[in-house]
C-alpha cells in the first residue's frame, strides 16, 4: 500500500554499473526529493549530483503496488546547475499534470563572484498520462527571461496549476499571471 503523504520515500532499486568489461548488478536506496500523487499513482523526482545537478523522473507505483519506472531526465547542459523551486516535497498535481518551477544556473569560470553567470526560471509540465515533459521560460514584461538578479518570485501551491501560474516578483513589485503552455498570457 502506498503511503498517503510521503515526504521522503525510499525505494530499493536495482541498478547496473559497468566498469570496463564487467557489468555488476547492485541495489541502491534512492530517497526521492519530491513525491507527488497524481490520480491513483505516485510519481517521484530524484536528484543526482554525479556530474551536475540533474533530476530523474520516475513513476513509483500505484495504490496497490510499488514499482519504479524511469520516465525522463532533465537535460541540463554541461556547467549548468538546476534546482527545483518548491515550498514542499510534494509537487502540485492537477488534471494528471505535475507542475513545478526550476531555477537553472549557467556557470562561468570567469565570473568574479561565485561562478554563476545567469539564472533562468522555468515552468515545467510533467504530463503523467502521456509521459511527456515540457518547459517554458518565465518571461518578464519586456520579453527577457526572469533572472536571479531580479529577486525571487513568490507563489504558493494554490497559485500554480495545469493552466497558469500567478506570482509576484518581490524585486520589481510586479504581479504576473503566466500561461503554462507558452510562458505568456
Amino acid at each position, binding site marked *: 500500500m502506498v503511503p498517503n503523504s510521503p515526504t521522503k520515500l525510499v525505494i530499493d532499486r536495482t541498478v547496473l554499473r559497468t566498469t570496463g568489461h564487467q557489468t555488476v548488478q547492485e541495489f541502491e536506496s534512492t530517497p526521492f526529493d519530491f513525491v507527488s500523487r497524481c490520480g491513483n499513482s505516485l510519481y517521484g523526482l530524484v536528484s543526482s549530483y554525479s556530474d551536475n545537478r540533474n533530476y530523474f523522473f520516475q513513476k513509483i507505483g500505484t495504490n496497490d503496488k510499488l514499482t519504479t519506472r524511469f520516465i525522463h531526465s532533465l537535460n541540463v547542459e554541461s556547467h549548468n546547475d538546476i534546482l527545483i523551486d518548491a515550498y514542499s516535497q510534494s509537487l502540485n498535481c492537477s488534471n494528471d499534470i505535475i507542475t513545478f518551477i526550476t531555477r537553472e544556473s549557467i556557470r562561468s569560470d570567469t565570473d568574479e563572484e561565485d561562478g554563476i553567470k545567469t539564472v533562468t526560471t522555468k515552468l515545467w509540465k510533467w504530463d503523467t498520462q502521456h509521459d511527456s515533459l515540457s518547459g517554458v521560460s518565465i518571461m518578464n514584461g519586456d520579453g527577457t527571461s526572469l533572472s536571479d538578479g531580479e529577486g525571487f518570485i513568490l507563489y504558493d501551491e*494554490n497559485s500554480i496549476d495545469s493552466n497558469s501560474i500567478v506570482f509576484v516578483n518581490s524585486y520589481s513589485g510586479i504581479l504576473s499571471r503566466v500561461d503554462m503552455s507558452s510562458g505568456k498570457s
Partner: protein
Amino acid sequence: MKQRKIFDSQSGFMEIATNTDKIAILATDANDINKTSITFYDKKTLEKVSSIPLDGKLKDALWRGYWNTNVNHISIKPRY
C-alpha cells in the same frame, strides 16, 4: 503575460497566499515599516479587489510569527 505593478520599491517583508479566486499579498513598505497591509487581487484579471491596513498589534505579531492564510482565513502562529 498579464502583469500589474503593485508596488514601487522592494518590500521589506512579503508573503503571498492564493485560493481558487483571489491572491492575497502581505507586504511591508521597505521605506516605512509602519505601512503593512494585505491586498487582495483577482486571480484571473489581477485587478485589485480590496486592501486591509494592519494595525500595530497584528503587524507586531506578523513580525514575530508565521503568517498563514487561505485567503478566507488568516492565522498567525507566534514563533516564541
